[in-house]
């Protein structure tokens, strides 16, 4: 359970808050997606969840963020990071090792996971991301999608209750992006992990998330199930969030009185709805 209450944060060197009066609660086990225009405070929001804000960046912090009841301001970054696993935006700077296996071990060694459990955890995390065969490979020799999976697996091995990812598919092609989301969502469901992911690819978010949060200029503009949020396609467009095309299509048909069903978030649901329109 993540509870954000009246959160306001302003970096010391900037002249306006990046996050203003934000309140949001994300239930345990939710798959939450955050979307918004550049500079709307998405990344800072992820920092607030994993404690990098306020612990690593100086600035003014108001309100509170609680992870399973622990206030991030009163908990050390080291303790927090056992609950909240973070995958950075720039994964190349996250890697500390040359070989996949060593990268997997790093966090486990640091947190003093008993040595007889380490092997099992490494294997489990690698399998969860479908990369067990890459264990002995050099990270430098992997493709972008494989690297991303290694970065995620190395965090999953620590078994965090919350996983925070900042644009994990920015550098990936559509097929690998979808694959990463599918693996994540499968893992999260099996382990009850809460996932918070910042992402620009709206089609992926609407397919995989159960909570979609739209951020505009440091505030939450919409938060809810994708079907609820995407109903506002015209307003979303105004703040720089483009709905999937089939959502826009169905919303326009709905506005024209041709369709009255629920909002469609992907191609199959739109096609089913259109068949009904025709019938």
């Amino acid at each position, binding site marked *: 359970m993540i509870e954000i209450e009246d959160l306001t944060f302003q970096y010391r060197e900037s002249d306006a808050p990046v996050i203003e009066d934000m309140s949001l609660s994300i239930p345990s086990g939710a798959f939450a997606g955050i979307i918004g225009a550049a500079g709307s405070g998405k990344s800072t929001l992820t920092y607030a969840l*994993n*404690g*990098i804000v306020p612990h*690593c960046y100086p600035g003014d912090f108001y309100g509170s963020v609680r992870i399973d009841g622990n206030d991030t301001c009163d908990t050390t*970054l*080291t303790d*927090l*990071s*056992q609950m*909240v696993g*973070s995958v*950075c*935006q*720039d994964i*190349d*700077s*996250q*890697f*500390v*090792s*040359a*070989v996949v296996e*060593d990268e997997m*071990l*790093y*966090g*486990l*060694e*640091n*947190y*003093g996971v008993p*040595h007889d459990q*380490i092997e099992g955890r490494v294997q489990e995390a690698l399998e969860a991301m479908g990369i067990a065969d890459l264990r*002995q490979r*050099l990270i*430098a*020799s992997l493709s972008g999608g494989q690297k991303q999976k290694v970065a995620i697996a*190395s*965090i999953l091995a*620590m078994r965090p209750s919350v996983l925070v990812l900042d644009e994990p598919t920015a550098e990936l092609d559509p097929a690998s992006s979808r694959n990463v989301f599918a693996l994540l969502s499968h893992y999260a469901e099996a382990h009850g992990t809460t996932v918070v992911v910042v992402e620009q690819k709206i089609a992926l978010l609407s397919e995989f998330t159960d909570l979609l949060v739209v951020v505009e200029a440091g505030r939450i503009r919409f938060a809810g199930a994708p079907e609820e949020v995407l109903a506002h396609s015209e307003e979303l467009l105004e703040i720089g969030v483009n709905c999937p095309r089939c959502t826009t299509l169905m919303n326009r048909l709905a506005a024209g009185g041709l369709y009255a069903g629920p909002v469609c978030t992907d191609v199959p649901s739109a096609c089913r709805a259109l068949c009904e329109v025709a019938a």
Partner: protein
Amino acid sequence: MDGFLEYVPGNSFLHRLNPVTKIAFAIMFAIACFCTGNLVFLCLMLALGLALAASCSMMRQTLGLMRAVLAFSLVLAVLLLLTTPKGDLLVELPWGYIGSDSILAAVVTVIRLEAAAIPLFLTFYVTKMTDLSNSFVKVLHVPYRYAFTFASTVHFIPVFMNDMRGIMEAQTARGVEFDQGGMVRKIRLMVPLCVPLLISSVRKTNSSAIAAEVRGFNLRTRESGYKRYPMTGADWAVIALGVVVLAAAIALSLL
């Protein structure tokens, strides 16, 4: 696609040695090279270095390295040639002369640098940085903080070189001709590129420090490491060889 100083996977004798052994041997080897000016001994050392490289099939990387060291040591050699008038007069210079011993000194410098460099660089090619730093923590009780700082510095070298390649490529696409003209021109062209490189490095090191911290960097102790780095018989044998080489060099220099 192997980069400068980047680990090359393998299972040779050198790969399997304890990282501490490799570093210790490489350092003794290098000191030995600097202890003596005996040309025959240095040539033997160079041959030994090359044999080591061959034993872990790292000849290609080693030859590349030798070329780079050659360029550097030639500059030194020429300086030596022009500034140390020793031995029989060969060429008259306005400020002295080039003697037969000057040539000998120049050759010794080149061979010495080449020989000393090989095992040091080889160590990085056959050892994972994580193993190197972890074994230092385990075997030599070096504080983890220092070992990690060293490891990540080396870890970032190929990352930065990759960045630099990308930056130069981007500028080439804009018509900057790195491939034409002399060294001075090339350096002059490269100076403005240090700005983007510096900016990306600062960003990278900053986010990598944070990434390490949120993975429990502060909790790490000597006991944390999962892998053991025991010293085996082979390790002690190699260290003994290093001691012998070093002793031989010192003996030669005293004779």
